[in-house]
């Protein structure tokens, strides 16, 4: 793992949980696995603070613990990939909102805020917020709806049960609890007593029927959706909407028979695909040309699917590894276009196509003037997008320089790692700058918030318009203008961070698949 990666991780942690957790996280990242006391000594923080920080990290699933060298002392380690999930919160929420509606989004938000929770607590909190939002009299009217949403989130595996401490033989809690959850319970929806929820909501004790069962977000499930979305969009761009729809269905069918993150799906028969499509929409215009579409997708250079057999009207596999290789190539090519121009990208693709190629050949085939071609090639080489290999014509030790020739080639994994690294850096820069922008104008932002909250309060108390205007005027026009400007900048930078996150997501996925 690179230094850049570590820097971004600690920055993200600091942003979300404050200075201290950031420090503890960074320390864990640097050292891999270590026990509590050793974190204390290297961070120079108090035991209490470190303990709290570790607690937070574990709660949000950003760190784990297990018995270390001595089985009486737990050692903690950070899960840096999970830290990146913190960046994706807006995307998670958006996905849930579009798929399950606002109520589910509320539930999800509560989970993101708390890290984990019991179904009853989360539902009550979401209900309270819904009440405020919709200005309802009573929170309890939302309980049945929220419960249903909760159940469907579990059924669709966006939520999963937290592992619980294993019971030891003597019934006493062990020193270092082992957290486990039975496979069949992982996605088993809770049965909730709605009435008890109402009682709980009123502040009285009651048993909602889910004592001791906690839930958390299954981030992998979201990432699976993001991944699928990338593939569907890619085929929609390359072929057309119908092609995209077919990929979507194939992915759906893949889950029935294949582990979600497998490199290649098990074969999916044509007939099954056709029947699914027909069930979904008997009038679908795709039906008529389904076989043709499959052929076209299969023959496309992207290599998303492969035909593997003829039974059942043909069997098709989704090749995840190949798909993401094609997508990673494409992403890198696009980056080169933007950074070095389309001629450089032409050279890059040429080298990719020929595997190994000499400089002379590059300018000839790419049809770029020799001098320019040379400059671009060496620029790409310097920035590590191309690699060079020396080939000696003679084995003699003292063979002169013109006794060997140089071949260019691309090592995609190498390039992907480098792209990731500079994405981390860019992300780090954008976040740093965003913090600076708001830090520099902190007083202004605080003032604006204060004014806003006073105004809101007064409005609730039914103040006259004149009074409200007066409050508004506490902000000078120049201040208002500056405030909007600052907010725009912060907004722009946050958007940039989201964009970066997408590139990072794609590249990480490619590396995961190719190095599995």
């Amino acid at each position, binding site marked *: 793992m690179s230094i850049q990666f570590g820097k971004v991780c600690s920055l993200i942690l600091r942003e979300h949980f404050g200075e201290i957790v950031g420090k503890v996280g960074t320390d864990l990242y640097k050292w891999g696995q270590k026990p509590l006391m050793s974190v204390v000594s290297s961070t120079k923080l108090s035991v209490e603070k470190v303990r709290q920080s570790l607690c937070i990290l574990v709660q949000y699933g950003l760190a784990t613990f297990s018995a270390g060298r001595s089985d009486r002392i737990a050692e903690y380690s950070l899960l840096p990939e999970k830290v990146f999930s913190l960046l994706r919160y807006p995307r998670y929420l958006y996905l849930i909102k579009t798929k399950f509606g606002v109520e589910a989004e509320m539930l999800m938000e509560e989970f993101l805020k708390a890290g984990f929770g019991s179904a009853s607590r989360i539902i009550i909190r979401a209900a309270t917020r819904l009440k405020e939002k919709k200005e309802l009299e009573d929170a309890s009217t939302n309980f049945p709806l929220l419960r249903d949403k909760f159940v469907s989130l579990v059924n669709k595996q966006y939520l999963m049960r937290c592992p619980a401490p294993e019971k030891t033989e003597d019934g006493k809690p062990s020193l270092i609890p082992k957290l486990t959850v039975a496979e069949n319970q992982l996605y088993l929806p809770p049965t909730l007593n709605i009435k008890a929820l109402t009682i709980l909501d009123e502040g009285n004790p009651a048993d909602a029927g889910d004592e001791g069962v906690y839930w958390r977000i299954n981030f992998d499930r979201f990432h699976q959706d993001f991944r699928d979305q*990338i593939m569907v*969009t*890619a085929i929609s*761009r*390359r072929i*057309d909407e*119908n*092609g995209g729809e077919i990929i979507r269905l194939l992915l759906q069918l893949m889950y029935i028979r294949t582990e979600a993150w497998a490199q290649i799906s098990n074969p999916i028969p044509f007939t099954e695909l056709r029947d699914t499509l027909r069930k979904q929409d008997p009038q679908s215009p795709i039906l*008529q*040309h389904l076989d*043709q*579409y499959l*052929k*076209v997708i299969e023959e496309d250079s*992207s290599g998303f699917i492969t035909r593997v057999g003829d039974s059942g009207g043909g069997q098709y596999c989704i090749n995840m590894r190949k798909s993401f290789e*094609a*997508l990673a190539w*494409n*992403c890198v*090519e*696009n*980056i080169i*276009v*933007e*950074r070095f121009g389309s001629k450089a*990208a*032409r*050279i890059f*693709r*040429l080298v990719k*196509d020929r595997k190994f190629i000499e400089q*002379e050949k590059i300018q000839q*085939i*790419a*049809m*770029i*003037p*020799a001098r*320019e071609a040379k400059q671009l090639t060496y620029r790409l080489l310097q920035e590590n997008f191309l690699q060079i290999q020396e080939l000696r014509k003679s084995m003699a030790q003292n063979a002169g320089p013109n006794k060997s020739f140089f071949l260019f080639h691309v090592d995609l994994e190498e390039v992907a790692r480098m792209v990731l690294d*500079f*994405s981390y*850096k*860019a992300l*780090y*820069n*954008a976040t*740093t*700058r965003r913090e*600076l*922008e708001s830090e520099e104008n902190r007083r202004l932002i605080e003032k604006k918030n204060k004014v806003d909250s006073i105004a809101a309060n007064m409005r609730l108390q039914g103040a006259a318009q004149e009074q409200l205007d007066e409050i508004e005027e506490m902000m000078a026009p120049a201040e208002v203008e500056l405030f909007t400007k600052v907010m725009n*900048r912060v907004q*722009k*930078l946050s958007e*940039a961070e*989201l*964009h*970066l*996150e*997408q*590139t990072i997501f794609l590249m990480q996925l490619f590396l995961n698949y190719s190095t599995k």
Partner: protein
Amino acid sequence: MATRVKQEPVSPTSRDVSSPPPGVNHNSQIVEREQRILNLLQKSTKAISDKEILLEIPDLSPQDRATIINNLLQKGFLDVFKQGEKLVYKFKEPSCPSKIKGADNEEKIVYSIIEKAGNKGIWTRDLRVECNLDQTTLNKILKKLESEKVIKAVKSVAAARKKVYMLYSLEPDSSVTGGAWYNDQDFEAEFVDVLNQQCYRFLHQKKEAVKNCKDGPIVAQNMASASSKDVWKYISELGISKVQLAVQDIETILNTLVYDGKAERSVLADGSLMYRAVESLLPPPGIVRTPCGVCPILKQCSDIGSINPNNCVYMTEWLE
């Protein structure tokens, strides 16, 4: 491959018997016919066979033909090849040392090296290494041969200021001149760019035209594809090119489109190449929409030091 032509039908001795005694008349006729055949050979770019010679001079007897061919062979004017069962002849610039009359041995060596290099020419440095003469002598010889129009220097497109030498009468190979894309050693980048764009426009239009095609994706793809010949026709009709382009030239251009990621190439069963415009799989990635993603000094940038995100001008500009 050059061989002497066997005088199959008639042996020299039998010729003496069967043909009329070689008179003055006959001799001058042979000289005249030899010239005609030589002209014929010079005019034709391809090798010619006995049949074509007979077409030119219908009453040429086989014996005379053999004599003439042998004469020409001896003078080094032609090469003989075997094509199937037939013999064919091809004109060749005579390497006759007579062209460099009075030449000394050194000149002859230089000449023969240059001759060997054919129409690809030979670079002065390689020439010097091969002939083993010192620079001044070599230069003198080259100058002399050049002024006598025996050899010529041709600028090569492989590198600026690189000159190659070849025999005066030769047409330089396209690897030396660069073919249609070079104008006197200068690569016509703009011309290539224009052609690249026009080819893309053509393919793109075809693709757009089938957007709402109802006959299935395969039909649509086939309709969107164009053979290199189609594109060649379109480009020729546009009249943007001063020089006559060959289909192969257009294929070269089309291949650059493939490497631009804007087109895909496929080969039909009959070997002809088909091209089709394609959309890239992904839109420009998020990273290039941020200033750091396209920053030229990203490598030098860090949070300590003078190049840092907090006082970065690129960022400030972008944020405005």
